[in-house]
């Protein structure tokens, strides 16, 4: 038995066999061979095994993801049956007397170079397919297992260095019981994904991939942030009990699904959910979300090889708006850049992506992308209660420009006879300190604010949230952050507007009392945190929390704030 400590990223307890999602080592040496027939047979066997694997993946993909996604695997199979590819590889083995690995790599490299040199961008991307297929055959030749998450067919715990959006897109939700990663924090993609899938996750363990092998039995405790590898029977029994308790607690909270979120002294606040795709709506309803506080539209753009069409986007937005049945849905326009890349946009690499060309900056420059999204949103607006917000606004100028583009698209749609909702509230994300400081000026022009604390904290503290060495500076309770939050909330209220929060902080048990006291109107969080937050707020007095917040604003450090909140809550 071994215990590893990491960061608790998504609550719950799961136990299952480990599945390592790790790029295998495919290095090999060029070797001279004697027995051409044996080497050719080795190649044939690896190709046959690869085709069998691809057929299984293809069938699974068709079931889980649909024909479009599955078609790519058909192409892979045909590549492995291509006489113009296999012929030259065998020829090379015969005439050069080299090992199959070398012959395969040399030949496929030639095809990759050929496709990469074509004028047509689409064709250039096919080089990636050949690379994929080559890797698969190589893994069979070398006898190393290539991870193919789409073929998972039993309950597993995913062990990875980190999980990228394209990894998680391939995972079969039915069988994945938890994540454990080496790197990352509460706001990394794998953590956010785990919360939206409602499975436990422990991230930032530094060494999970080093100590956990395929098939090891692992317990993931998403509350304590621990991993227990190959536990004893006693420990398993202990955790089964904890699992049971957690389920009971959840059942207790579940009674609050249809209740209002009202403090002891009668103040109502709205508890909304952050979502990434229309599929997340089930979770929002099951957890009693009073709206969508953040719909991250970038997932529509990720894990594919071209931009989504207006029609595709329209369908997704319409689905969410209809699904929420008149409750507010705040859609954030495309927030790409930073840690979220879109390879097909072919943007130049930047030294400082978080301070670079991203989100609204990109949208105002690449206006066709932005306008397509806005048209889709405007057309969908008649199906529910749509509010639109722009991410990463740093200046009033940017907001005015984005708003003008929206108005233009609205006018042209209406002239073309399309229906658009009469009044669509227009807001901004407050995640850049300049905007938080200037909130009074913004409040005159926007309809609402939504504070994005993950970025606001990183920009205020000048600490990269992906860099573990400065992670101690990620301080949501730092009075500097609280003062900025207060400034934003007060500014909005003075203009008769409202303020929400859609960062991790909004669902944090220690932050909620402070935010309630500061007058926050809407709290948007992972759907799975809503009931816990509702149960907490129903036991707090707004008036008391105002006093608490006032005291906290006068403290010097984050530690003092945490201590004050803990003392107040335990009274």
């Amino acid at each position, binding site marked *: 038995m071994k215990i590893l400590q990491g960061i608790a990223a998504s609550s719950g307890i799961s136990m299952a066999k480990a599945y390592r999602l790790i790029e295998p080592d495919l290095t090999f040496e060029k070797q001279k061979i004697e027995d051409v027939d044996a080497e050719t047979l080795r190649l044939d066997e690896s190709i046959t095994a690869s085709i069998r694997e691809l057929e299984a993946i293809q069938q699974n993909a068709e079931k889980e993801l649909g024909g479009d996604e599955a*078609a790519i695997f058909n*192409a892979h199979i045909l590549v492995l049956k291509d006489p113009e*590819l296999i012929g030259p590889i065998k020829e090379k083995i015969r005439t050069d007397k080299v090992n199959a690995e070398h012959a395969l790599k040399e030949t496929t490299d030639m095809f990759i170079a050929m496709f990469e040199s*074509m*004028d047509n961008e*689409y064709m250039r991307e096919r080089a990636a397919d050949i690379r994929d297929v080559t890797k698969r055959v190589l893994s069979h030749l070398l006898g190393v297992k290539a991870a193919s998450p789409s073929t998972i067919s039993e309950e597993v715990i995913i062990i990875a260095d980190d999980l990228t959006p394209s990894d998680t897109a391939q995972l079969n939700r039915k069988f994945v019981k938890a994540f454990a990663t080496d790197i990352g924090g509460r706001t990394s993609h794998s953590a956010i994904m785990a919360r939206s899938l409602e499975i436990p996750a422990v991230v930032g363990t530094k060494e999970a991939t080093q100590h956990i092998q395929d098939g090891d039995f692992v317990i993931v405790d998403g509350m304590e942030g621990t991993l227990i590898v190959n536990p004893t029977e006693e420990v398993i029994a202990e955790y089964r009990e904890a699992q049971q308790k957690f389920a009971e607690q959840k059942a207790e909270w579940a009674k609050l699904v249809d209740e209002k979120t009202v403090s002891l002294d009668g103040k109502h606040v709205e508890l909304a959910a952050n979502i990434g795709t229309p599929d997340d709506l089930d979770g929002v309803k099951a957890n009693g979300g009073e709206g969508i506080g953040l719909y991250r539209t970038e997932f529509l753009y990720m894990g594919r090889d071209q931009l989504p069409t207006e029609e595709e986007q329209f369908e997704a937005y319409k689905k969410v708006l209809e699904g929420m049945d008149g409750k507010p849905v705040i859609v954030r326009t495309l927030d790409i850049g930073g840690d979220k890349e879109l390879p097909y946009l072919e943007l130049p690499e930047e030294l400082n992506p978080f301070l670079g060309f991203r989100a609204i900056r990109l949208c105002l420059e690449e206006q066709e992308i932005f306008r397509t999204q806005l048209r889709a949103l405007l057309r969908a607006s008649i199906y529910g209660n749509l509010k639109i917000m722009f991410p990463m606004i740093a200046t009033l100028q940017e907001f005015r420009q984005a708003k003008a583009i929206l108005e233009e698209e609205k006018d042209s749609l209406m002239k073309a006879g399309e229906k658009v909702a009469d009044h669509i509230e227009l807001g901004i994300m407050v995640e850049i300190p300049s905007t938080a400081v200037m909130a009074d000026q913004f409040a005159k022009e926007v309809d609402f604010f939504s504070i994005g604390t993950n970025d606001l904290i990183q920009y205020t503290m000048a600490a990269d949230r992906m860099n573990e060495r400065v992670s101690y500076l990620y301080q949501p309770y730092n009075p500097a952050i609280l003062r900025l939050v207060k400034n934003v909330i007060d500014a909005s209220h003075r203009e008769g507007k409202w303020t929400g929060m859609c960062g991790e902080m909004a669902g944090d048990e220690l932050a909620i009392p402070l935010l309630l006291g500061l007058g926050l109107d809407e709290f948007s969080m992972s759907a799975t945190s809503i009931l816990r937050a509702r149960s907490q707020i129903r036991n707090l007095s707004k008036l008391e929390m105002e006093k608490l917040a006032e005291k906290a604003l006068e403290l010097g450090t984050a530690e003092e704030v945490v201590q004050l909140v803990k003392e107040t809550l335990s009274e």
Partner: protein
Amino acid sequence: MAEKQFTVIDKTGIHARPATQLVSTANQFKSDIFILHKGKEVNFKSVLGVMSLGLGMGEEFTIRAEGEDAEKALEELENTLQKEGLAK
């Protein structure tokens, strides 16, 4: 031997998915089947070969089949091209 000329009518050309479909069809026949374009001749049973031509909208190409089921092969490929709106 059977031979016939076509013109691509699909906006996006003969890209990966239709190429996959056409090559799967070609693979069902015993005949040697070739696709001729701008002086190049590639094996129609090779998906990489067909894709490497990068056939775009408005471009002409010829299909040639040689062997016992040549006529039938050409007929089937023509069917697929028309049914999918790829070429005429």
